[in-house]
């Protein structure tokens, strides 16, 4: 039997994913006027990880967050899980492209907004294709897009603040 060696990278991912899961729980506790309109605080972690440790780590942290978050909140493999997964996948792909934008001009705020749009876009498309096969789903698009803009900006600002205040370091709980 081979023993799995736990690297520092693994520990870091685990810590960051824990932080993201914690924020997911906070997110779920915040009352929302409309299902789907959520601050998405866990994306702050994704943004910070993306800036500090790169895209691959961000993917790991997000995947673990979606998995562990859904287990803790009890929607693993329920429709909400797939919505979450689709939204996260699309926003990670968007971040993968958008992080190549010149950093002098585009900071975490831009990335956060683009990711938020990709997130809600993916969820709407999945909802339309699978859960509610009716174009009526799209009636709420302006509301969702507006929320994505507001919360995307907020999360981006928080991520930018965190990145500006904590110097880059290799410690696990950066």
């Amino acid at each position, binding site marked *: 039997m081979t023993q799995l060696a736990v690297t520092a990278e693994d520990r870091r991912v685990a810590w960051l994913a824990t932080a993201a899961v914690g924020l997911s729980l906070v997110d779920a506790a915040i009352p929302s006027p409309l299902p789907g309109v959520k601050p998405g605080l866990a994306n702050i972690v994704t943004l910070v990880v993306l800036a500090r440790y790169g895209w691959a780590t961000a993917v790991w942290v997000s995947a673990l967050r979606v998995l562990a978050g859904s287990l803790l909140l009890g929607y693993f493999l329920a429709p909400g899980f797939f919505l979450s997964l689709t939204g996260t996948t699309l926003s990670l792909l968007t971040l993968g492209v958008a992080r190549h934008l010149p950093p002098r*001009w*585009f*900071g975490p*705020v*831009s990335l956060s*907004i683009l990711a938020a749009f990709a997130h809600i876009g993916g969820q709407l498309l999945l909802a339309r294709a699978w859960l509610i096969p009716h174009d009526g789903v799209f009636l709420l698009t*302006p509301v969702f*897009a*507006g929320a994505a803009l507001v919360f995307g900006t907020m999360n981006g600002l928080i991520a930018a603040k965190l990145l500006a205040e904590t110097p880059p370091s290799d410690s696990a709980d950066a």
Partner: protein
Amino acid sequence: MKSWLALIRPGDWLVVLGSAALVGASIPVFWQGGLADRAIIRQEGRIFAEVDLKASKQFAVSGPLGTTLIAVEPGRARVVADPGPRQYCVRQGWLMRPGEIAICAPNRVSVQIAGRTRVYDSISY
């Protein structure tokens, strides 16, 4: 406040403003694109009349029980009177969104609102 503003880079403003414009532009696309533009009146399942929801009009459709009166106004339509015993279609009131339908089953008359694109209602599924 100032320290927060300093975190926004020039391109970020561009993204914020661009997104805001996009969100603003999306409102008419999603909230008017699906606007009702026709009322389809059926008698015994066959199309009795297809009316543009632009002008006010009244229709009298005869069925096995009597005459069903239908009113069409700009952007909406309703069943005004029906000889049916339970009056469900009358009590539904104004129909405004594509896909909405009032069915006066006893008299075999229905009014349906149609938009630019064909929509399905829960009955289709």
